[in-house]
């Protein structure tokens, strides 16, 4: 499998606080890769760095063989990175609350010019997430947390990305809904051939879903291995699986 995302020795600081130190990792095309870590380990910072929302202090990130992020001022802007085929479902969903479900999906398809393609994808999304079809004309703020999460994922899929980044897709949701969302993620990966890189606090579920995983502690990658191996790893069990 070819490497689609390569993160090469990146560091990120907020003022004098170092959020990421010398992080390197790689995601192969077609995989589901997860990044686990505690609150404040720097997981969201890493995803935001990939899409150019936070500047790098050191290192570089390349996507499909081309550099997209470099140290300050030399990377692409976020909208151009999105146009390359990376979609991020941000932590806390960040739905456009005052817009309807349908308008949110339209925004997800902002880069798609062909209205027929947009309409077709919207129909696919309403099939895949029936609740969104039922609520298409409703303001997004009236949706429940789980529905908003599904809408945020559907919105990200509207651009037909090559790489889908998910930031804590299970955050604050009931366990059954989290299960549902992860099974959808698996389907997206298998049937739509979308590479998935997800960040999650629910380590067990994330590692079970993934073929490969990374463990982030205090801004550094401390472990990496196949998902199944990490599940058996003593350090991971102790710190993240509550064993």
């Amino acid at each position, binding site marked *: 499998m070819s490497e689609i995302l390569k993160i090469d020795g990146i560091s990120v600081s907020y003022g004098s606080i170092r959020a990421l130190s010398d992080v390197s990792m790689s995601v192969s095309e077609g995989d589901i890769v997860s990044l686990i870590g505690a609150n404040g380990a720097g997981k969201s910072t890493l995803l935001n760095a990939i899409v150019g*929302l936070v500047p790098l202090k050191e290192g570089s990130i390349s996507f499909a063989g081309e550099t997209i992020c470099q140290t300050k001022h030399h990377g692409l802007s*976020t*909208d151009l990175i*999105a146009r390359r085929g990376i979609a991020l479902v941000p932590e806390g969903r960040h739905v456009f609350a*005052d817009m309807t479900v349908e308008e949110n999906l339209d925004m997800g398809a*902002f880069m798609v010019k062909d209205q027929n393609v947009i309409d077709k994808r919207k129909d696919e999304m309403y099939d895949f997430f029936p609740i969104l079809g039922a609520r298409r004309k409703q303001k997004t703020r009236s949706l429940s947390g789980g529905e908003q999460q599904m809408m945020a994922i559907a919105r*990200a899929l509207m*651009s037909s990305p090559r790489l889908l980044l998910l930031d804590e897709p299970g955050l604050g949701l009931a366990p059954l809904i989290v299960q549902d969302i992860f099974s959808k993620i698996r389907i997206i990966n298998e049937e739509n051939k979308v590479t998935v890189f997800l960040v999650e606090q629910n380590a067990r579920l994330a590692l079970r879903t993934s073929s490969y995983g990374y463990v982030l502690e205090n801004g550094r990658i401390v472990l990496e291995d196949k998902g199944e191996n990490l599940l058996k790893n003593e350090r991971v069990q102790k710190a993240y699986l509550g064993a």
Partner: protein
Amino acid sequence: MGTLTLYMQYIVNGLTLGSIYSLIALGYTMVYGILKFINFAHGDILMVGAFIGLLIYNGLTGGEAADPGAWTLLSFFIAMIASMAFCALLGMVIERVAYKPLRNANRLAPLLSAIGVSFILSNGAAWIFGTQSRRFPYPFENEPIHIGSITVTPHQIVIVVVSVVMMFLLTFFVNRTRMGKAMRAASLDQATSQLMGINVNRVISLTFAIGSALAAVGGILASFDFRVYPSMGTMTGLKAFVAAVIGGIGNIQGAMLGGVLLGILEAVGAPLLHIPNGMKDTVAFAVLIVVLLVKPEGILGKNEREKV
């Protein structure tokens, strides 16, 4: 004339004035919606719009000497569209030069820059055009029309019709078109709209262009009543800002509603409370104070709360 019809007349006058406030308030509210910044130079854009419109109109018709007819009416609309285009460009240039470099600076910096731009525009106009006020010749016969005991002038009708058309076009744009929706998305969440591939810088430029074009229309329509002079944008701009706050700043329907409401309150309030003519501006600001005390987010403004 009975009291009731008298007040009906005030309401008609207020509606006319208010639709001008609405057009100008839209520029304040759209820019605030996306940048959380009050563009204090916006009032001066309407003055530039009025001057440009007047120059083009006079150039096309020969000014006061022209007899109102089809050609003057056509010239009026040509002048308006040309002035909209000029102000749209001016708005984009101002944003690019005076506000964009300060986007990550302290919040006070772009505000001060806007005040600076305001002075440059009004003093620049005084330097180029002189400080005397000019009349905008009526492009059509302004014979009053009597409906019952209420009098409506054709220029009032033009003001209301043009304003309604502009607001209709804007509503269509923000609700139905791709860029219009992108504009709403960017004002709701800039970072997330970038994730959708939206170039926020372009959306901001477009916002300034549209707001300034609407201000140009407002300026030209206002000059029927108030004449054209370099400081004409100050008070009208300030009142349009009040209208935007009353309606709920950042909210497009709010700006439209706030403008009309303020116009009517001014026109009705001054005679009702026996406020002398020279002090009738106090009505607008009294209304502002009341709104800020009772419903600080404005009539249609919302207190944003996020679901976690």
